[in-house]
């Protein structure tokens, strides 16, 4: 397959090289169309968001009001903090101009004059790289006033975060841009009505935006034929863990998970068996190694298998992996990253962590398994944002699919207690 998001062209991050391969031609094309024609093209392509929720991008754009007195905003989400996810970073480094071109086209389609690219604070090096690309785009007249003589003007500013997973949640991201604590907001109202400073706002993931120029180049019909029909297009899959060649691989959606591991990521390290796979970042439901056969990397394929595509950050674990340790570490993360607004999440993530640490130390009781599930079930769906769900799902799925590990640990714990001399 032709690599479109991360093409293997040396120095592609440079504006002259990008232009020499047809870069910014799609911006010209977009500016020659009516804004609603651009949106229609994206809508018909069936592009779905690459940030985790798989929401149809074109449909999201149509939520923006056409007639409004207020300024409208685009936030491009490069917070990328979900464990196992490291794809947007590749775009920032190797193809920043595709991101910039897509951003300007999205702005044009929605009548937006200010876009913010929100990048996690730790990516300081990558922010410098993108800032250089943005400066070059301004110098060439692709950004700023009267872009390419079209009469359309738009600005793109990079906004650096400072270390908070929750700021990848769209409403927390807006609060962060407003200079506040990154607390998610209650929805409704949705961002398209009431976003940044109360104005209509759209939030799209970095990789999602990069698909926009590709759609215009290929035409929506051709784009919609790439990969899985209901979730088409190229997708960046990050593979980490016990594989021979971890990394980010561009592929069509709908590739078998087993092919991703064997063909793209070089197979399992030391020829070991696959114990478990987390298919789309740490919040997606864990799958047993035996259960990944025939499952494809797309929204429907993973949903049918009882998980989700998330950010397509695949974490692969071999047969020697201690699953209790894995879930305990994941629980630690969500406890650390809970913003503290909602009681079920703030308290529940801490309780789950404490219980899981008991399992780790062989101090757990058999009834702790159901206690854990009870807590997870009471977090899920009872919080302002999806972090609560993201904390609950790994615990629920780990117990559902690896219950015997918990039971074995609880049994060992009973033994250990009895062995202590009285």
């Amino acid at each position, binding site marked *: 397959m032709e690599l479109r998001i991360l093409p293997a062209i040396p120095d592609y991050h440079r504006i002259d090289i990008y232009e020499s391969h047809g870069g910014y031609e799609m911006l010209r094309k977009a500016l020659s169309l009516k804004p609603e024609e651009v949106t229609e093209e994206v809508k018909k392509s069936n592009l779905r968001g690459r940030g985790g929720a798989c929401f149809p991008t074109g449909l999201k754009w149509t939520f923006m009001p056409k007639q409004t007195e207020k300024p409208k905003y685009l936030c491009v989400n490069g917070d990328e903090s979900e464990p196992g996810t490291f794809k947007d970073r590749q775009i920032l480094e190797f193809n920043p101009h595709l991101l910039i071109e897509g951003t300007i086209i999205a702005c044009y389609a929605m009548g937006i004059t200010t876009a913010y690219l929100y990048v996690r604070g*730790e990516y*300081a090096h990558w922010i410098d790289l993108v800032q250089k690309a943005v400066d070059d785009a301004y110098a060439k007249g692709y950004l700023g006033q009267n872009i390419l003589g079209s009469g359309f003007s738009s600005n793109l500013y990079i906004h650096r975060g*400072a270390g*908070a997973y929750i700021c990848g949640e769209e409403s927390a991201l807006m609060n962060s841009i*407003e200079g506040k*604590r990154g607390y998610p907001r209650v929805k409704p109202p949705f961002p398209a009505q009431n976003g940044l*400073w109360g104005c209509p706002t759209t939030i799209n993931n970095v990789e999602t935006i990069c698909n926009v120029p590709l759609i215009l180049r290929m035409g929506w019909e051709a784009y919609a034929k790439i990969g899985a029909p209901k979730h088409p297009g190229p997708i960046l899959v990050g593979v980490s863990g016990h594989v021979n060649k971890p990394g980010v691989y561009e592929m069509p959606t709908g590739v078998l998970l087993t092919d991703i591991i064997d063909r793209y990521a070089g197979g399992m390290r030391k020829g070991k068996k696959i114990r478990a796979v987390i298919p789309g970042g740490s919040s997606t439901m864990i799958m047993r190694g035996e259960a990944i056969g025939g499952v494809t990397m797309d929204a429907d394929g993973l949903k049918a298998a009882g998980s989700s595509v998330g950010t397509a950050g695949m974490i692969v674990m071999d047969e020697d*992996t201690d699953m209790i340790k894995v879930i305990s570490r994941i629980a630690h*993360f969500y406890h650390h990253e809970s913003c503290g607004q909602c009681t079920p999440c703030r308290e529940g993530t801490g309780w789950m962590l404490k219980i899981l640490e008991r399992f780790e130390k062989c101090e757990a009781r058999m009834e702790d398994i159901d206690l854990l599930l009870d807590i997870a079930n009471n977090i899920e769906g009872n919080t302002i944002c999806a972090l609560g769900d993201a904390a609950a799902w790994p615990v629920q799925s780990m117990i559902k699919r690896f219950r015997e590990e918990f039971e074995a640990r609880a049994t060992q714990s009973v033994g250990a207690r009895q062995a202590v001399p009285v």
Partner: protein
Amino acid sequence: MLSEESLKRIEELKKRYQHPQSVVIDALWMWQKEHGWVSEEGMKQIADLLGIPVHHVYGVVTFYTMFNKQPVGKHKIEVCTNVSCMLRDGEKILKHIESRLNIKAGQTTPDNRFTLVEAECLGSCGTAPMMQVGDRYYENLDAAKVDTILNGLT
């Protein structure tokens, strides 16, 4: 106090947003770069510059983990131990540095040269295990590589 250069930059950045409060994170970055950590004095100056109450600035400083709420060593070392790094021995890297520097995660060496922190996922899962020293990422680590990197820090 913030440098003249930073003050100028803050004024420029204010134009990008509807409200000057949006510059608070950038202003804190500038303060931290110049002073190593964010003191009360820094929060007060930034609050004045942006025309917002100091408690807003304090709220931001305490929410975001990258702001140092107390002085740190010359080199802040952050080692990721989240799942992808854990599967590739990130914890061993952390333990190695702990024993080398003779401190635990969360502590600073008595000579104030190193602060060691256990970090959450830093987006280097494909090049695990990894650590961040200041703004720089070091990836695909092993104990020998860590030693070379630490020896190279002045």
